[in-house]
């Protein structure tokens, strides 16, 4: 029953995001649609034709009432019609997004996973050695890295390892000599090009994982059952196993929530390394004011994060017997 309720809430939230986006673009000062329409008129385009052009670009007629525009907008979204790009003349938004999403998904998921395990390792290590110099130094370092924006780590890696030390290639996700497909040179090239962006993700995120693992593990260490493990004479390995199992659980929700953060970071990392992913698409459409693409990316990203939260919530209640209703 809780599943249905939570799912309903998620749908409600997606609808709210849709609505907020619509009104933000239509009603804020500097309404891009009216701007485009007026500038066409100024260029001497007859109003009928200007309106038709706007309709092609934005799927609305500027003289329709806001309510009609809104209903049409929702109707189109429900049919997967996110409008057409302005910059990539006439290309529908959805295929554009779907074509760039795989690169982002690949880099983000590898980045999250590696940083998660590094953070887990360091966090448990700090918790086991808490209140020593190791704890002090590592906790401060993790705090500084926690919340560092990806463009800082990305830029540093880019500059040092492609400019100062030209060890890694610069730009795009594969070299221009390979043919995309399931062949070894292509995969190798992708892997080679992925090292720096993934490193940038990892350095931007491991601090957060380290800190949350540490606090979870410290809390668990104080629990009676861990104390009892020692008394029962369990081997250090078994104790560690117990500790990690119980510390990972609270991190689970954070793991999913961080997806949203990571997609934000993708904008910077893909812009910095010129990777043709979702983040690059967002950055490019932003700087060129390609509203339909921006709006489409934003809606899909938000919906994906909201649904991921929903799934995490459901999974979490399965994993942790205490929340099961």
């Amino acid at each position, binding site marked *: 029953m809780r599943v249905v309720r939570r799912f309903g*809430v998620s749908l409600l939230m997606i609808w709210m995001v849709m609505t907020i986006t619509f009104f933000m673009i239509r009603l804020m*000062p*500097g309404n891009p649609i009216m701007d485009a329409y007026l500038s066409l008129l100024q260029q001497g385009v007859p109003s009928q034709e200007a309106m038709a052009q706007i309709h092609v670009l934005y799927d609305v007629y500027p003289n329709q009432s806001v309510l009609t525009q809104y209903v049409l907008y929702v109707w189109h979204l429900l049919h997967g019609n996110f409008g057409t790009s302005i910059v990539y003349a006439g290309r529908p938004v959805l295929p554009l997004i779907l074509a760039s999403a795989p690169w982002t998904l690949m880099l983000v998921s590898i980045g999250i996973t590696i940083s998660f395990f590094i953070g887990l390792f360091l966090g448990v290590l700090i918790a086991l050695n808490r209140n020593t110099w190791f704890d002090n130094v590592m906790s401060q370092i993790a705090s500084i890295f926690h919340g560092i924006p990806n463009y800082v780590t990305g830029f540093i890696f880019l500059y040092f390892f492609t*400019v100062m030390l030209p060890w890694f290639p610069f730009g795009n996700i594969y070299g221009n000599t390979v043919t995309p497909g399931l062949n070894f040179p292509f995969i190798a090239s992708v892997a080679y090009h992925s090292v720096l962006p993934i490193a940038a993700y990892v350095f931007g995120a491991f601090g957060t994982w380290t800190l949350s693992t540490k606090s979870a593990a410290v809390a668990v260490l104080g629990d009676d059952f861990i104390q009892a493990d020692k008394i029962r004479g369990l081997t250090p390995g078994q104790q560690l196993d117990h500790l990690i199992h119980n510390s990972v659980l609270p991190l689970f929700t954070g793991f999913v929530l961080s997806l949203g953060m990571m997609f*934000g970071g993708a*904008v910077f990392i893909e812009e910095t390394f010129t990777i043709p992913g979702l983040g690059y698409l967002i950055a490019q459409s932003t700087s060129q004011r390609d509203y339909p693409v921006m*709006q489409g990316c*934003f809606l899909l990203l938000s919906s994906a*994060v909201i649904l991921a939260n929903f799934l995490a919530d459901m999974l979490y209640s399965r994993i942790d017997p205490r929340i099961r209703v």
Partner: protein
Amino acid sequence: MILAASTASRQSRSSSLARIFLSRPIRVIGLAIIALYLFMAIFGPVIFPPSTALVANPAKVYQGPSWADPLGTDFQGVSVLAEIVLGARGVLMVGVGAAFFIVVVGVAVGLIAGFTGGIVDAILMRITDVFIAIPQFPLLLLVATILNASSPGLIILMLGLTTWGGLARAIRSQVLSLRERDFVEAARGLGLGTGTIALRVILPNMLSYVAMNFLVSITGAIYAEVGLLFLGVTPFTPDNWGVMLHEADSVAGALYTRKSVFYVISPLMAILLLQAGIIFILGGLDEVFNPRLRKTGATQ
């Protein structure tokens, strides 16, 4: 009598404040870093008058550090140090302003939702959930592009509006747990009004949390602001760390020469150092607002 008592307590408070921050070397370092940034923000234009310091000098493009330009020069031959120092004011102003906005809105929404409960709570929390769930940076990009914001006030508003959700939810859950405590019930029994209970009884218990959030929000807002400029979204202000990064990335050809190292690294280090300074004093802040953590000297 009352005057004497309150000055006495104020004196002991300021002396314990000094003790808290000077007791650990790391906090002293943190304070020094923050003082340095404040100094740059306040006196920057005095040390490097923008009219002379930011003038391009084609003869000095991408020079290494020297006595005249301790951090070298950029692609126009302008001193990097001057750019960093002059950028501090704008960056700090937006950071502090946005953090202030976030704290005020977050605390207000959290307190109101936690205290009133019922339908008001439900509505406020659904709105908060949406703001938490939406990936913050893409939202910021969208808003910034639409608003085409260049004035600091508008950037502050934008950063604040997209970020207050997390704090609001955390404050609400703290209010929910604090209001079950006996001392809140006792305050109700003493006939204190809801406003007094919220602001004078419950809020002081959350001050250390709020203050920490304020500081952390400053760095977060600075990151976001610099990031927006880095992507070239908001219109340019001439001297800003984000603009430096943007130009390094896309205008200045800095990524094709090793000579630009100080130009590229300086704005990044400026951000990292400020972050470090704030992290270093966070522990002290907790002690200031949480009397239980304070080591009281000769009192008992």
